[in-house]
């Protein structure tokens, strides 16, 4: 009986921590899933799945040193599983949505069309970066994680991550430069 009572008290304590972390990190995890899937519905499912796995880990009293890096690691694994199970046609989805005037990258906090379009454009360009650069650039520049934290998520050394960020940013600049040149000629 004591074990059951204790379990309920653990659940209540864990639920409190969980609620705080969810409030703080849900948007970031969702954005990361959206970047990698280009599909809002899939990204919503993955966000939920990530937090459910996080909840289970809390319940098992796993030693989690950094909630943020832990969540990104789970999200990354969820996305990798998805890619393995079913090769998505995310680019096609993106094009279909664009053709139909729908966007997966709806901004929650602003109705400013120009900001919306710039943010959408940038996230698309980051999504175009090949791996191993895309995740490193995204996690550093958008989510502002430190190279050491990114190294925990991606399973590489911090030095390797720093190099990837630097090279990835060069590629991103090149992509944007090309886009700019293309826009000028058309």
């Amino acid at each position, binding site marked *: 009986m004591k074990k059951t009572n204790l379990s309920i008290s653990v659940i209540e304590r864990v639920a409190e921590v969980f609620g705080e972390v969810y409030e703080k990190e849900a948007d970031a995890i969702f954005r990361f899933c959206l970047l990698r899937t280009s599909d809002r519905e899939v990204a919503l499912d993955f966000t939920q799945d990530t937090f459910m796995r996080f909840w289970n880990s809390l319940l098992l009293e796993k030693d989690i040193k950094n909630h943020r890096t832990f969540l990104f690691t789970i999200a990354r694994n969820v996305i990798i599983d998805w890619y393995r199970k079913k090769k998505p046609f995310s680019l096609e989805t993106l094009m279909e949505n664009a053709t139909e005037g729908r966007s997966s990258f709806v901004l929650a906090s602003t109705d400013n069309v120009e900001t919306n379009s*710039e943010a959408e454009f940038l996230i698309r360009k980051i999504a175009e970066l090949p791996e191993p650069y895309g995740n490193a650039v995204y996690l550093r520049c958008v989510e502002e994680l430190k190279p050491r934290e990114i190294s925990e998520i991606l399973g590489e050394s911090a030095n390797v991550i720093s190099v990837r960020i630097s090279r990835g940013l060069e590629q991103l600049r090149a992509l944007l430069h090309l886009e700019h040149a293309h826009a000028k000629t058309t």
Partner: protein
Amino acid sequence: MPMPKPLELKCIDGRCPPNIDLVKEIALTPLEKKAIFFCLKNSIETLKERLREEIPD
């Protein structure tokens, strides 16, 4: 599809391009945020309920 506005990424004092910050504006809508939390909370409540049922009167 309308042509995206040309953007130039700039580094200031070696820091990351400032306009990348715009991507942070992409977020869950308040409704989506609540809906996901509601589903998760339901699972948690179900688990708690199941454990309570195990306690005899």
